[in-house]
Every structure is written in C-alpha cells, then in structure tokens.
C-alpha cells in the first residue's frame, strides 16, 4: 500500500509541477496574470514558474509582424484617384500596454494600425500631386507616415512601428486608360519623327546626288562643246584657207560634190528637160 501512496504522490507532484512551470519561446513575450491582474512581464525566453490555478500566462509573438492592408483609393491634390497598397512592419514593445489596449488580439492591433495608416496616408496624399507621390516624395511620405504612426502606436498600443512602406501606387482604371492613350500618342509621335527624319535624310541624299549628277553632266557638256568648238574652229580655218584661194571654183566644185551626194540612188527620180546643157549633143535638131 505504501508503494501506491508514493505513486499517487509522485503523480500529484508531477501535475503540480507541470502546471506551475511554463516556457516562453524565443519568439515570444509573456504576461503573468494573477486572477486577471498583471503580475509580471516575461521578456526573456526560457522556463518560468507560476502559482498553479492562481496565475495564468498570456503569450504574444514578439517578432516583427506585417500589416498588409488592402489597397485603398486616395485623392491627390489635383483630385486624381490613385490606388495605394502599403504595408506596416510592427512589433510589440510594451507588452502590458498592448494587452490592455487590444485585449492581446493581433488582428485587433492590425485593424487599428490599418485605420491609422490609412488616415495618415490619406492626409499625405491629399497634399501632393501624382508626380510627387510617384517619384520625388515617395520617401518623404513613407517617412512622415511612419513618424505619425510610430507616435500613435507606441503611446496607445505599446507597438513599435518598424517601418511603413508603400508597395504599390496605381492609377485608377480610367486614369490608366488615359495614360495608355497618352503613351500611345507619344510613341506615335516618336515613330513619325523617326520616319520623317529618315525621309528627310533620304531626300537630302537623293537631292544631293541629283545635283551632283546634273553638275557633272553640265560640266561635261560644257567641256565637250568647248572641244567641239575648237575642232570646228580649226576645220573652219582649214577650209577657209583652202577655199578662199578661188571662190568661184570652190562654189563650182562644191556644187558638183553636192550633186553626187544628193542623187546617188535608183529611187531618186530626175525629171529632165532635154534642152538642158547636158543634152546639147543629145538633140541635134535643135
């Protein structure tokens, strides 16, 4: 019987121990409560003790959490709609405050942070133009929202906001369509410019070539006429020198040459009068 009692006691001790020991993991922080009242905050991981049945323990994830809120539509200063997708990185730093303000529910914390994030973003976007939002001041917006959120979260929820970042800035569908058509017209302009440049250059080259050709041919014509003229001059002077010795004989001689050249074919028909000089002896009655 003694043995059984020992066994029972041992079991009891084991139960007691197991309910008075608890662990806090490396990724966790824990609150020890005594009947709902916070007794201590366990920031260090490891094996801990508590009073069974009196104390209970709530654990929280102390790693950096991500709030990836749904994309929200904001108006810029020029009243254009942009859709903004952002995320917030946060972690619990003041466990007690976190527990009290959110009831220890992560989703609750995310919800509140999301609201604050949207508010801060909205006010930042409403001060800026689209181009500023997209490019120049994106960093500034993120820093400003982070600053605002950090203050609120730390004071109210015991949360440290590690970072706020804008993931996406999208134009709304109708603005996007107008962007597309603008891009299209820009490209069309560019394409036309390329083609026109090509045509210009081609026209220039062709015209230049045509000019070259005309000049070359004209120069050649000039030179050839000069040469021909020289030839004509020399030949004229040769003729003049020879023929001016006896002009009458030249005209007689030249006429005979012409006759020979002009009438030298069967097809040529001469209609002759028998009274002509050639037929003087042909017609003796005369």
């Amino acid at each position, binding site marked *: 019987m003694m043995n059984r009692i020992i066994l029972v006691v041992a079991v009891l001790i084991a139960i007691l121990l197991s309910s008075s020991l608890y662990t806090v993991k490396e990724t966790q922080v824990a609150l020890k409560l005594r009947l709902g009242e916070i007794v201590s905050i366990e920031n260090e*991981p490891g094996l801990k003790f508590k009073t069974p049945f009196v104390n209970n323990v709530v654990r929280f994830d102390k790693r*950096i959490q*991500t709030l990836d809120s749904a994309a929200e539509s904001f108006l810029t200063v020029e009243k254009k709609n942009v859709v903004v997708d952002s*995320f917030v990185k946060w972690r619990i730093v003041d466990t007690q405050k976190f527990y009290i303000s959110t009831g220890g529910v992560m989703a609750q914390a995310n919800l509140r942070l999301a609201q604050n994030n949207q508010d801060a973003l909205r006010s930042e976007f409403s001060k800026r133009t689209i181009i500023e939002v997209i490019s120049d001041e994106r960093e500034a917006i993120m820093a400003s929202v982070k600053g605002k959120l950090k203050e609120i979260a730390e004071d109210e929820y015991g949360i440290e906001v590690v970072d706020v970042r804008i993931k996406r800035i999208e134009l709304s569908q109708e603005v996007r369509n107008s962007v597309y058509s603008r*891009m299209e017209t820009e490209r*069309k302009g560019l394409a036309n410019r390329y083609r026109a440049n090509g045509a210009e250059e081609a026209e220039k080259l062709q015209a230049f070539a045509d000019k070259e050709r005309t000049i070359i041919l004209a120069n050649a014509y000039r030179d050839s006429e000069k040469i021909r003229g020289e*030839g004509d001059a020399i030949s004229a002077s040769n003729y003049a020198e*020879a023929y001016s010795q006896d002009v009458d004989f030249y005209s007689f001689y030249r006429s005979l040459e012409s006759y020979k050249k002009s*009438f030298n*074919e069967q097809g040529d028909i001469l209609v002759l009068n028998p009274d002509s000089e050639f037929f003087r002896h042909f017609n003796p009655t005369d």
Partner: protein
Amino acid sequence: MAWNDENNKNPWGGNNQTPPELEEVIKDFKNKFNSRFGGGSSGSGKGGVSKAAKGSLKYFVILAVLLWLLSGIYIVDPAEKGVVLRFGAYQNTTDQGPHWRIPYPIDSVYKVNVEQIRATEIGFRNIQNSSYGGAVSSESLMLTKDENMVDVKLAVQYKIADAQAYLFNVFNPELTLSHVVQSVIRQVVGDNTMDHVLTTGREQVAQEVKSASQGLLNEYNTGLIITAVTMQDAQPPIQVKASFDDVVKAREDEQRYINEAKAYANDIVPKARGASQRLIAEAEAYKSQVVSKSEGEAYRFNQILAEYLKAPVVTKERLYRETLEEVLGSTSKVIVDSNSNSLMYLPIDQLINSSRSSSSSSGSKTFQDNPTSQSNDGSVLRSRENR
C-alpha cells in the same frame, strides 16, 4: 529470462558497467518485492509470474529512459545550421555533424539550410514553383517618373545568412522579402524615366533594388541575404505594346530610307561621271574627226585647184560632165519634152512607190531638175520610166 535476452539484443547497451549494475538493481528489486509481497501472495504459481512481470517493468523503465536520451541525437547536414533551444530560449547554434541535445521537452532543435539559394518572383510566377504560372500584372505594372507605365518582372535569389535571426526576428521572413522587393522596385522605377528602365538602365535598376532591399531586410533583421536580383523582363504594358513595336519599326524604316537614298546616290553619281567621260570623249572624237576631215578636204581642194588653174575651161567642163554622168547613171530619170504642148499626166506617186518597192532603198528623193540656166517654160510631157 526475457529481460536477459533483451539485454543481449540491445544495440545501445555496450556499456560494460551497466549489466552488473542493472543485475544488482534487479536482484535488489526482486528481493524487496519478494519480501514484501511473498507472504501475501495468492498462489505460488501466480507469485512467480508476478515476480517476472515486476522485473521486466523495472527494466522497461530504464530502457525508456535510455531511448529518451538517445532521441536527443540529431545530425546537421553540411549545408545546415542547427539552432538549439532550451525551454524555448536560444541555447546555441551547431554546425554540421552529429550532435546531442537534451531531448524533448527540454531542448528542441531547428535545422536551417543556410546554403540553399532560394528564389522568389515579382510580377510573375514560375510554373514550376506554383500551381498557376504566368504573369501577375498587379505586381508587375508600375509607374515611372514620367507617369508612364511599365511592366517589370523581377527574379530575386536569396539565402538565409543568419539562422538565428531568420527564426526569431520576423514573422514570415519570405513574405517580408517579397513585400520589401515589391516596394523597392516601384520606388526605383518611380525615380527613373520609362526609357531608362526599358533600355539602358535595366542593370542599374536591378542593382539599386538589390542594395535598397538588402538595407531594409537588415533593418528588420530578417537574417536573409539577397544574392541576386535580375530583371527578367521590362516592357511597356500590353495595351500599348503595338505602338512601342511600331517605334522600333520606325527606327528601322529611318535607316532603310537612308540606305535606299545612299544606294540611289551610289547608283546615279558614278553613272553620271561615266556619261560625262563619254561626252568628253565623243567631243574629242568629233574634234579630231572634223579637223582631219577639213585638213583632208582642204588638201584635196588645193590639189585640184592647182590643176584647174593650169587648164581652167577643160577641167571645169570635165568635172561637170563626169559628175552628171555619175549622177544620171545611178538614178531614175524622166525626160520631159518641153516643146510638146499636150497635157501630160505624170504619176509621181506611183513612180516613187514602184521604184521604192523594187530597189527597197531607204529614201527616195524626187527632184525637179529646173536649173535657172535651162528653159523652164511650163511643159506638158509624157513620161517614160527608165529602169
């Protein structure tokens, strides 16, 4: 005897001291057991069974303890780090090889592969990694500085550099990486113009994304290190792709126009030069021709003139006769008697046609021989074709 068998079979029971100790313990236990329950035993046969059962229970407990201790052995692969926790608190990190820890529930170990290169994709999903592949335009479409949209697809390669940080600092580090890269790529693209992102700046954009993302990951202390960021694709959105393609075509057209014009120029200018050479050459030929011809004719005239001057009348008469003979000898002739007053029909058209068809000569000349020296009173003649 069962326990004895078990002892021999036990592969871990290599400790020489254990069997005697165990035996003593068991003997002791048996003795105690016998003395305590021996008197009150219900039957001798039953008592024997009970003794054996008690002995094996004792041994079973010891065996269980041994097994429990052995379950603390773990092996870390060369590519891995083992992170050991004691009651959830970080204890130490072990390298490759076999190790021992205090078994569950006191110690636990996470093995993390720190060499494996992992990859994540922004703007598309690799078919291998995901049930649905293809583009994810909500991730890939982004605005540039000049308010244009581009479609950018990134592949990010990373590995776990610090196993402890990876495990304990951030909830879901991979998702964090994806968020960070998405945020950074949009920021970088938003700081650059579309042309830069699409053409020359690709490499630079990828580098900026890598360094800025790594900065944020370090800030969050994720324990991840980005090894490479590559821009898989950077294109204009599909809606305007046609017009972008047209620009490329236009650029080629431009070159083509210029090339065609150059070809034209290369064609006509040399031809013109050739033609000019021909003109000059022809002119020179003409010059030589006329000069030679004039020289020859002048010489000939001079020769004949010299003879003519010696005997003018005879020479003139001779030349005239010879010429007429030659001319009349080779042509068709119609002799008209001017004294006859009868009306004569002279069908010159037919004469020409017939002479042309017979001789098929190139050109026929009709000549009315009507020299002023001859009598040219209106003559009505009858014709005679001479053939």
